[in-house]
Structure formats: C-alpha cells, structure tokens
C-alpha cells in the first residue's frame, strides 16, 4: 500500500494577526502544520499499521521551515518525506495543489490524503485539485478509512448526525476531516533523532496555477461590541442568566 499525504504549512494566527500590506506579515508569525493534516498523517499511519505499506509525506516549503513538520511526521510513522522548495509564503492553495500534484505524479500512489481544508483560507481545494491533476476520484470529509485488497471502506459524516460508508476502489484522493483516533504523540527524542538522521528529499516547484483571487485588504477583526459582564453573587448571576435565556426564547 503506497500512501501519499499532502500537507500544508500555515501561518499560526492563534494569538493575533499581524498584517503587512494586504496580507499576513509572514515575518512576524510562526508557521505550523495545518490541524487537518495532522489527522491525514494519523489516518495514513493507521492504515499502514493495519495492512502494511509505506507513507510518504509531501509539502510545500513556504518559508524554509517545513523540516520540523516533516521530522514530526517521520516520528509518527511516515517512511519518507519530501519538500517542494518554493520559498513563497504567499502561495495560495491552488498553486500549492499544482506543485503537490506534480511532485506526487510519479510516486505511484494507491491513495493520496490531504486535510479536508486548512484554517488559514478554509478553501478546501488542495485535495480536489490534486485529484483532478492526477485524474483520480476524490472523496472528501472522511472520518475513517479502512483498506482491504483494492477497495477502501470510507466513512463520512453528514450534518444531523448522519454517517455513511462508501466502498471506494483504489486509487483515489481523500480529503480527511478526521482520523478515527486522535493524532498520536511523537516523543521529542524520536523527533530529534529523525532531525539528526533522516533525509528530506527536495523537489523544485513545477507548474503554475492560481485561484484568480487577490487580497484587496487584510485586517484583524474589528471589535464592535463587548460581552456584558453580569455582576453579583453566583446565585444572582445564575438568576440573571436564566432570565436572559428566557427573555430571548432560549429556555
């Protein structure tokens, strides 16, 4: 089983949003692995553990710091890691999808996983676009993937608590919503060991694509209203909360 996981490095704006011009000030933020990609890697390693095979993790190196994420992937059970040396922090997801597809093309993948979306643009296009470039079917929003022979049983969740299982013939591309288990912990000693011993394969970016969209303006959200703090003893506060909920038809 040859599984390829396409990952995305994104600016961490958990704390605040530094802006420069009409984009994020990429020099003032740390880059982190997209949270959904952590699930993609976990899903791939779980399948490898169940049926054997290899897991290759590939990502676009936007700022020259992707190695940390790749070493982490190796410590979690990936076998091979590849970085596309783009050095372009502003590359959008369409461009990244093109570069990723070109890099993945010759890998002979049975399955390609990508996080269903990333929290920086919530674009959700990397998976579908890779599938289109590679001429493979795409299934998005997966919550569990099990493989038997040349067929995968793919679970998806729908609104309202409805779940569905699909039988998908390999090869295919999946947009991973979540792995069936929380992403495993990689001990720092293993990550450091990987940093010292592992080889990160480098690939030059190839091909051009664009979403056709341009940022007109970027700004941190403007605070328009503040939360109302309810004063008083816990009992008084509780009574006021109940009153508020009732007056708004919520209780």
């Amino acid at each position, binding site marked *: 089983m040859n599984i390829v996981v396409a990952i995305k490095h994104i600016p961490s704006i*958990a*704390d605040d949003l530094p802006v420069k011009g009409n984009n994020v000030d990429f020099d003032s933020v740390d880059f*982190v692995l997209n949270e959904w990609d952590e699930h993609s890697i976990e899903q791939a390693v779980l399948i490898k553990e169940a049926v054997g095979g290899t897991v290759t993790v590939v990502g676009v190196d936007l700022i020259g710091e992707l190695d940390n994420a790749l070493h982490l992937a190796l410590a979690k059970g990936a076998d091979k890691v590849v970085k596309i040396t783009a050095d372009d922090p502003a590359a959008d997801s369409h461009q990244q999808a093109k570069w990723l597809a070109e890099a993945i093309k010759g890998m002979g993948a049975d399955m390609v996983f990508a996080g269903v979306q990333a929290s920086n643009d919530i674009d959700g296009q990397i998976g579908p676009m890779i599938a289109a470039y590679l001429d493979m079917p795409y299934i998005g929003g997966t919550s569990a993937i099990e493989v038997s022979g040349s067929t995968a049983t793919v679970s998806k969740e729908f609104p309202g608590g409805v779940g569905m299982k699909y039988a998908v013939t390999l090869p295919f591309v999946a947009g991973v919503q979540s792995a069936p288990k*929380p992403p*495993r*912990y990689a*001990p*720092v*000693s*293993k*990550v*450091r060991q990987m940093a010292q011993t592992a080889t990160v394969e480098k690939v030059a970016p190839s091909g051009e694509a664009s979403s056709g969209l341009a940022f007109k303006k970027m700004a941190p959200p403007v605070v328009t209203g503040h939360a109302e703090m309810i004063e008083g003893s816990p009992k008084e506060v509780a009574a006021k909360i109940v009153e508020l909920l009732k007056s708004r038809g919520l209780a």
Partner: protein
Amino acid sequence: MAQKYQKAVAVEKENIVVDGVDVSGHWNRMFEQRVIFEYTPELIEKIASIPNAESFANCYQCAKCVAVCPVDVVGNYGPRKLYRYAQTGMDLTEAPELWLCTTCANCLRVCPKEVNMVKIMPAAREQAILEGKFVPNELQQAFENTAKTGNPLGQPQRKRDAWIQSAGVPVPIIKDVGRPVDVLWYVGSYPSYHPRGIDAACAAARIFNALGIDFAILGKEEKDDADSQRLAGEKGLFEMMAEYNIATFNKYEWKEMVVTGPHELNAFKNVYPKYGFERPVVHYTTFLARHLDQLKPLLKHPVNKKITYHDPCYLGRHNGEYEAPRKLLEAIPGVELVEMQRNRENGYCCGGGGGGMWLDSFTAQHTTMRLSEKRAMEAASTGANVLAVACPFEVSRFTDAVKSTGNEHVDVLDILELLDRSMRGE
C-alpha cells in the same frame, strides 16, 4: 501486677482436641492438594528491567508506603499496591495507574527497601511514551505546547514578559541591562502567564525592588524548565529544553539564581547539573529568609489572618526547605500560623507534581476526589482563613479546590502576595 512478662514461646503439638474435634485437621486436609497461587513475576521484571526503575522489584509488601501515599487517601493506590497489581497481571506501562503518581516522594521517605517511585515512574512512563502506548490527552497537549511554544500553557513566547507591565515597579531584562547582576530571577511559566501566577510575580518584583536587590529576568528568552514534563516521562523534551535553558543562563553574568517555583529549583539544582549546569540556585523563600532583617522593617501593615502553610513537595521533601517559608509568614505582623496535621516531611501533595498539573481530569476519573480538594479540606479544618503556598502550581489548584469543596472563605495566597500586602497595606 508485678508479674514479669516473658516472651511467648510457641508450642507445637501434633494435635489438639477441642470439644471432641481434632483441630489439627490432619484427618481431612493434610494429605490433600493445597491451594496454589499463580503470579506473573514477568510483569514486575518488565518494569524492573527498565533503567532507573530497578528498585520496583525491591518491594516486600510491608505497605508503609500506602499509609502515606496521597493518592491512596483519595483512591486505591501506592507502590505496594502497584507491585501487587503487577504480580496479578497488570502491565504498568498500559495501566491508568501509570499516570496517577505525583512523584511526591513521601513513600520513599518511609520505604525500608528504597523503592524509588521518583525514578521508577518517569522511567516507566518514558518507556510507554516511546512505545506509543496511551498518553492522556491533556498531558500530551502540555508536552506539545512546551515543545512548540516554550511553556506548557501554550502561550506565545513573545508575551512571556508582558506581565511586567502590571508590576508597577521596574523589572529589568538582563539582555538590556548590559552588565553583571547579583540575582537572575527565573520567573517561571505560571507566574509569567497564569493570571493568579502573575499576581505573585508582580508581588515578587515589588519585594525585590523594596529590598534594593540588583536583579534582572530573562524576559522573552526564558522558557519552561520542563522538570515536570521529565517526571511525566518526556525525557527528550526535557533534554531539549535543558540544553536551551543552560545555554541561555550561561550567556549572562550573574551571581545567584532565584526561582519562583520549587519545580524549577529541583530542575536547576538537582537535574541540570547532570547536563553541565552548576551554578547557585535558591527558591525565593530561602532567598528572602536570608534578607529577613532588611525585610522585617518593610512589613509595616498587619495582616490579621489565621494562616496555614502548605509544604510544596518539591520545596520540602525533595529539597529540604521547611523553615524559610514559615519564618517569612511569622515575620508578617498580625499573622497567626497554624499547622495542618500533615506538614513538613509528611506534607500532603497538592496533586500537581510529576505531570499531575496536566492530568487533572484524568486523575479525577480514577480517584474519589482531587488531591488538591483533600488538602483544601484539611486546610479549612484548621480554622485558617488563608492557605499560604509557595509553588506556582498551587495557587490555581487550591483556588479551584476551596471553591469545589465549599471553602471559599479560605483565601489561597502565595507567600509573596502576603508579604506584598503587609508591605503595601492592602
């Protein structure tokens, strides 16, 4: 009753007949199959074969440890029990018991066989982590935060010294001072980021200023000591942080390091030397007790409170400091100091050590109440209206615990905050 007692001497008899029955029982069982127990010594051997966990096999089941184990007080635990569970089929590296020990070291104090859980637990946990076994989620999060952001709370590194804005006194950053200082004050993660920890940090800054101490902090260069992460089994993370911290400490000239927290004291004094760092480090209570003559005239305002003091495990049992905190509290005019039943060497653990700080929900699932709640109840039972602490883990733990046990009338305050109140009259 002038009779002289003699040692009882056992008398063996072949048989004895009571009420017509031969009670030796030879007539019905002496030639029968006797009950045979089957044990699994390999699960004891599995733990004892891990480097640093060898003493696990020393246990001879005397149970002295169980009497002092803080987890057993609120649950079913203790080194003796762990040995017994292992004997009857528990693989410690996969059991929830692996995560309940707080490394408080009270068992080691009473153990005649030197079964050392302070070494056994980190070693067994490290093995479990390296083998990819179950790690409680909240602990995993603290590990990941420490590795990513330099502190277990997951707060941004560049805001590590943001607290100094609220101190109201100058807090020099050593990088900006540009000259050697007497005291490098290692603030610590919780005093830097946690709202109640910041209160203690601000109090310390005011006290150091009032005493005219020539001090500086590392500011944005300071990162977590990671000792509790080590005790929770993440030795690789600890080593990574230790390498960074030692290099940072050695960048600057200073005579003595003062730490806010006992866990940092333990790290820098007892563990970092193994990694090449050997410079003087003291806890703030020891440091301030040394300046008591200068400090006393500053404590102008009475604090009319009945105070009980909780000995932090890593200040007391692990580092032998019991008197300095009490001297400081007694120096505050108006203070009446009362002791809880379990104090000093037998102090009860707050549950925060050995990674317990980040296992609160997990531990709560396996105990009848939190250790901090048990201790808060003990504090309240002395009639005290202040529970004084000297460890940054404790303020938040006990503040929650006095609320959840219905003892809100007990204020949880760091000794730094009490000294500051007496100094400023609030």
